């Protein structure tokens, strides 16, 4: 059996390996949320944290661009209402107040356990047409720096990263994430799947930031 980590735990695991993730706090009440938001600075993103509500957006449990405390308190109530409407008896761990990451070039970094080959890492173009463009590349893990560089050069989005539209993006930050995912996976063989989507990549020198992350683990039991 395997299970998905909740978003907060997934973020913590990735951050623990130095993978830059959007900062977030788990809040149990409105006051807590207001305090966290002022610490992060508005605008913020708010999401339900519940292993029983997987499709958070469909359930009306994600609010993006919450601009001030009034909006935050309002959103807090509505997320809980919507969650109850979606699944009345769902166990709710709290509400996640997350830094609203500046939009960057959208990429995906993922890992899947192949039944024959073991862990396989994926890097590719992100966005809503991932399935159409299929601009992805795979490698067996572990990878070294040279292999990460080659992965990046293989995908079409590399041209954009290199400055096709005037902006040169931070390729080193992507290579760094690939290498850190490789290390994380090799040190945690119970991880079956990782999906960092999107990873926002910024201008050269300004790094990258993962916004959403999914991690599937083998259950200890």
């Amino acid at each position, binding site marked *: 059996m395997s299970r998905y980590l909740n978003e907060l735990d997934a973020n913590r695991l990735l951050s623990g390996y130095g993978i830059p993730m959007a900062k977030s706090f788990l809040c149990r009440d409105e006051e807590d949320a207001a305090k966290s938001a002022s610490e992060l600075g508005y605008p913020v993103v708010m999401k339900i944290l519940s292993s029983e509500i997987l499709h958070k957006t469909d359930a009306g449990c994600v609010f993006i661009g919450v601009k001030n405390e009034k909006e935050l308190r309002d959103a807090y109530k509505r997320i809980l209402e919507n969650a109850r409407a979606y699944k009345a008896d769902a166990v709710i761990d709290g509400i996640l107040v997350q830094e609203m990451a500046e939009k960057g070039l959208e990429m995906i970094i993922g890992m899947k356990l192949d039944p024959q*080959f073991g862990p396989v890492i994926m890097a590719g173009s992100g966005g809503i047409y991932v399935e159409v463009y299929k601009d992805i590349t795979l490698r067996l893990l572990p990878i*070294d720096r040279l292999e990460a560089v080659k992965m990046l050069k293989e995908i079409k989005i590399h041209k954009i990263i290199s400055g096709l539209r005037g902006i040169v993006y931070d390729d080193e930050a992507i290579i760094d994430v690939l290498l850190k995912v490789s290390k994380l996976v090799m040190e945690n063989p119970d991880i079956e799947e990782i999906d960092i989507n999107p990873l926002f990549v910024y201008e050269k020198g300004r790094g990258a930031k993962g916004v959403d992350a999914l991690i599937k683990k083998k259950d200890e039991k």
Partner: protein
Amino acid sequence: MDNNLRALFNPENIAVVGASSNPSKAGFTILNNLLSIGYPKKVFPINITEEKILGLTCYEKLSEVEDKVELVVLITPSEMIYGIMEDLDKRMAEKNDVKVIVCAAANYGETKTEEGIRRQNCLMDTAKKYGIRVVGPNCIGVIDNINRVDTTFVETLLPKETRGKRGGISFISQSGSIAASILMTGASQPAPISMNKFISIGNMVDVDFIDLLEYLEEDEDTKVIGMYMEGYSDGKKLINTMARISKKKPIVVLKVGRSDVGAKAANSHTGSLAGSDAVYSAAFKQYGIIRTYSFEELIDTLQAFDAFPLPEDNNVFILSQAGGFGIYCTDALLDEEVLNMPVVEEETKAELRSILPDMASVCIPEGYADITASANVRQHVESLRIVLKDKNVGSVIFITVIPSFLPSKELAAELVKLLKEGEKVSKPVLICIMSGNYVRESRVILEKNGIRTFDTPSNAVKAVRHMVEYASFLKDAEGRK
């Protein structure tokens, strides 16, 4: 190294169970191939009714052969396996000499029927009891051109003088028909391909990819390994083995099952677990294993690795006597992102201009020269010599369409002088002489002298791409040390 596998390629005497006097039977072709390759030791046909086949004395049973027998080829209908194994058991109890069985016959485990599996188990039980290695069942057989062994039942019309000739290509095939076609197509090249070692592995009930790859890894005569594969149960182990070997010698693979439907077909064909093709592809790329996508590309690439030195870089100069094919080749070359058309030295350009006809187009675009249809033999050969000595040129694709006024055999002979008799040429020169039967003789002259030729410029581009990528993989591997 497994000593019994040694006996597969260099056995002390061979028995063919199911040898036949009927030229249309596989049991006849096997004997005929063993004789025509000039196997230097003894061959014992096992046949109950015949006294002699092809001049060889027949035996009723394996156990009746007095001499030592290290290799047994089985080409009897599979229902006879029980009796044969009983007899083998008797022989082994007395002589304990058989080291390898090549079970060419089909209708064993691959049928997935209860009876098929029972027959395969019967074969394997006896083999395991005595540590005999088994190739097949359901395979074409094995060839070793150096030790002059050919247990295949494929008729290729390979000329007798090519038999036993040393070549650098060794090939492992999971499919019998692909294996046979590789041999037949190889035999039909302008200079027939004489495989170093050739193994059709069929059901892989015992001897499998990994055993053979490891054997070929150590085999000094094998310069390049070719593989046709559908799938393998332990993909990770296979890839690890291939990754280790590819740092020493190139492995060129034709793997099928790219589409989901193809993968299902592969599963039911050899009963192997195909594994995710996308992951195989990634692993091949990661470890410098060369993947080809067509039969022609496979054969061209194997020949290129066997015949040419590895290119120093990705710069490929196109030297063409014909505008059409020159442009055709340029398109094909630029489709390969890894390849580049180089800017050559001014001195090279001036030298080319000085010897070529006035209407020749030199380095427009860069990395390209059209010497025109009016170029004579000397202009062909000289322009190639000039281009080859430019330090910015890594490889050359040389194209000529022979007009009636250009003596093609003379051209071929002059090219041989330049490339094989003069100063050693350390760059790949991929020659396309267009086309068909009219130019066949000139291609034969080149190929007999070890200069491989290509049917079309796009075939040459594919081959040079694989060489460039492999050379770059080796450089990276060196850098990683």
